[in-house]
């Protein structure tokens, strides 16, 4: 294909990728934009002012969502890091089965597990609470975290740890000064994408939160179904901000070695 044709194909692709985001940007600053007007009658910051005011609940919801995604990520790291180490460094009987068990929650739709999960959390007294939602998010996030850490540890040479230990370092010192720096790049990417997986959960939050835990996607949908296009658009743009920040942080890593990690991201 000639370079000019490639650019043309690239332009078509770029248009397709950007197109659904354009009405969101336009609606967020629109006021009184009725059919068939091509452009809003008036450009206004009204929707943004409302979305950022305390009465809309958007900021509180943003904080809730951030808290849940952060806690889920840390919890997943605490559980997934050791598991990734076991799966990446050792070959043992039943390893294939454990990997399969890890893949299952990443592939199975949330609706398949959500009813039973709600029953469990209800019995634990966690239904309708933030800790309950965090535990629920752990299901789709943990596989992702563990599989990335497995790939990270598969490239890690434990001989460095043994040398540190034989030179008198305590296990904690060894972890801090030898293991952690070696796995840090992979660990950061795993955490950032784990954050995003939790950040975009809808059904698990709806079912387990039972209306009492209002994350951004739930709020977004309630404004969307109320037909407030301008406010919905402003919230939608606020909602994609962390993803943009994460992309900015990882953009340089995403090609090359980072790409091997990106492919673990849930569709």
């Amino acid at each position: 294909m000639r370079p000019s044709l490639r650019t043309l194909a690239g332009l078509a692709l770029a248009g397709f990728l950007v197109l659904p985001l354009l009405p969101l940007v336009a609606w967020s600053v629109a006021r009184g934009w009725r059919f068939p007007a091509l452009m809003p009658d008036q450009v206004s910051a009204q929707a943004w002012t409302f979305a950022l005011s305390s009465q809309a609940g958007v900021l509180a919801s943003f904080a809730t969502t951030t808290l849940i995604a952060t806690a889920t990520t840390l919890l997943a790291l605490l559980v997934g890091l050791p598991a990734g180490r076991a799966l990446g460094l050792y070959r043992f009987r039943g390893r294939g089965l454990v990997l399969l068990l890890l893949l299952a929650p990443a592939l199975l739709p949330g609706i398949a597990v959500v009813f039973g999960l709600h029953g469990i959390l209800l019995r634990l007294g966690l239904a309708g609470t933030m800790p309950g939602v965090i535990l629920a998010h752990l299901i789709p996030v943990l596989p992702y975290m563990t599989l990335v850490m497995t790939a990270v540890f598969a490239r890690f040479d434990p001989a460095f740890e043994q040398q540190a230990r034989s030179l008198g370092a305590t296990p904690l010192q060894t972890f801090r000064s030898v293991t952690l720096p070696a796995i840090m790049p992979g660990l950061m990417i795993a955490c950032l994408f784990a954050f995003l997986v939790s950040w975009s959960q809808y059904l698990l939050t709806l079912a387990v939160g039972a209306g009492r835990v209002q994350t951004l996607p739930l709020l977004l949908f309630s404004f969307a179904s109320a037909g407030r296009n301008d406010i919905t658009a402003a919230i939608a743009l606020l909602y994609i901000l962390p993803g943009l920040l994460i992309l900015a942080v990882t953009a340089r890593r995403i090609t090359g070695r980072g790409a091997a990690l990106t492919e673990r991201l849930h569709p």
Partner: protein
Amino acid sequence: MTDRTRLVLLLAPALLVLGGLFLTGLGLTLLRSFRYVPALGMTEPDLSAYTAILTAPGFLKSLVLSLWIASVSTLIAAVLALATALLLRQTFPGRAVISFLVQLNLTIPHIVGAIGILYLLSQSGSFARLAHAAGLIATPAEFPVLTQDPYAIGIILLYVWKELPFITLILLANMQTLGEDHESVARSLGATRWQAVRHVLLPLLMPALLAASALVFAFAFGAYEVPLVLGAHAPKVLPVLAWQASTDSDLTTRPEAMAMAVVIALIGFALLALYARLVGKDSPRAP
């Protein structure tokens, strides 16, 4: 500490979470689908929830709709992603911008994309306004129904938009691992550029493409929030139908919701088996 004890300790937390929440959750759903709920005095399991959903026309229509959405969007996304990956492998002006957009799209939650598609394609959306400006339609009702429509065109478009970048990135990573040696050999043996792609590169990429497609199919089949925004009132996709049955004030439909969840889980497990086979279940790496 022996290696065995160490392994058990390292894996225990993850297995506890997966067993305690995921597997137990699935098991509880399964039990309730057999109308076995001792807490409510239902201690004699039966299959009536399954007979009920199989004889009701709504369930089968929803199942067909969900399978239709998943198959069509996976097929289109896979074909376009392959073309995109082949395009992005080459150099041309603007390639960096496209690579960035592909990655950007990956970070956008599905529900945001779904709302964007709604504002773009609904009967009073951006395209309808353009059609009006061009004199093609006079009222919104004359614009073709592309969202909340019986063929789920809006939903399919959203999945293509969202999953094309996902498959593309997997393919690009895979091409990077494969290197260009295989194609160079084919070229040196007299194959044209296209022949080298068609007979050498494509077969090598196929396992990764199929594995990524299995992931996309599973997601498009089981997602809830996208059809919530873009789906028609009837028939509803299976996950929406199941959720609705579970929140119905009529308590007798609860076991039917569980039975639908079990059917969804079975299809998920079939895809998992396919995925594991394609990736090789012993490899921790992605395709």
